């Protein structure tokens, strides 16, 4: 984080804020396990998130304009959706929010990967895992959303030759991972990453169409 221009003191203050946020999350989940304290738990957890966000924003060296725009757009849309959805439509809304979290992970991993001219193998593997898991969360949640809102049939959806297709897509994902590790930096990496995203999103789609019903049951 030194490249962001944080002094040692600012850095440790920020770490301390993250530590407090972690405690808030853990206690928040704990409280959410009992009906008497559940609402307080959710509030505490939300305050922890606010603290972590502020600690990150206040750090010097960040260009805030676009960040604030993103926060505003995402937050407003989230609030609007959350407050107007009917109670019976809650589960599919949760699926949609979960999916947007997955999308965020995918985008962060891609951004970190593309930033480096020569990513280390460690960064490559972590970025690929981030893209894979985030993408699976995203496409899987979309299918769950489709099924819960009855936009997709809730029965198990399978294509003919599904298992062969799954294997093929898994192969593409592994190929993307290997290529991402050995290819030099530059546009080639972008292509690999793009192909990687597409292939594993198809894979996730195919996979979750089969597992859709289990996913719906959470």
């Amino acid at each position, binding site marked *: 984080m030194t490249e962001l221009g944080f002094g040692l003191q600012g850095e440790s203050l920020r770490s301390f804020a993250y530590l407090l946020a972690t405690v808030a999350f853990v206690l928040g989940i704990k409280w959410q396990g009992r009906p008497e304290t559940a609402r307080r738990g959710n509030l505490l957890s939300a305050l922890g998130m606010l603290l972590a966000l502020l600690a990150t924003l206040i750090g010097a060296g960040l260009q805030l304009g676009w960040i604030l725009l993103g926060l505003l757009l995402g937050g407003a849309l989230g609030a609007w959706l959350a407050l107007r959805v009917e109670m019976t439509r809650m589960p599919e809304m*949760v699926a949609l929010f979960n999916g947007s979290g997955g999308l*965020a992970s995918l985008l962060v991993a891609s951004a970190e990967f593309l930033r480096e001219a020569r990513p280390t193998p460690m960064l490559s593997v972590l970025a690929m895992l981030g893209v894979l898991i985030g993408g699976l969360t995203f496409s899987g949640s979309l299918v769950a959303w489709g099924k819960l809102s009855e936009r997709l049939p809730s029965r198990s959806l399978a294509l003919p030759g599904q298992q062969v297709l799954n294997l093929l897509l898994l192969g593409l994902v592994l190929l993307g991972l290997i290529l991402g590790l050995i290819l030099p930096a530059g546009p080639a990496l972008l292509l690999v990453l793009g192909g990687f995203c597409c292939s594993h999103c198809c894979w996730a789609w195919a996979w979750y169409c089969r597992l859709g019903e289990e996913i719906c049951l959470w």
Partner: protein
Amino acid sequence: MHLLLAFILAAFLGLELISRVPSQLHTPLMSGTNAISGITLVGAVLAAGTGTGGLSPWLGVAAVAAASLNVVGGYLVTERMLRMFQPTQKAVHKND
């Protein structure tokens, strides 16, 4: 290595925290923990704000929007669900 350590500890912690939770709280707990997973927001802000030119900051801004949708929506939806579990209300809502 400390990342791996944190990951393993978090896995055990999660298991401990959510065991023995009454079933009517499962859905709000699911939604609440999903909101916490929006902590990706911190990574997104850093990715968006570290200006090196190129595509990365833009991907970061998109990630900020997606993550804040997850965070704000997740906490509000959880709050709305939990309002149905006020301890003063004796009626048990069987919504799941």
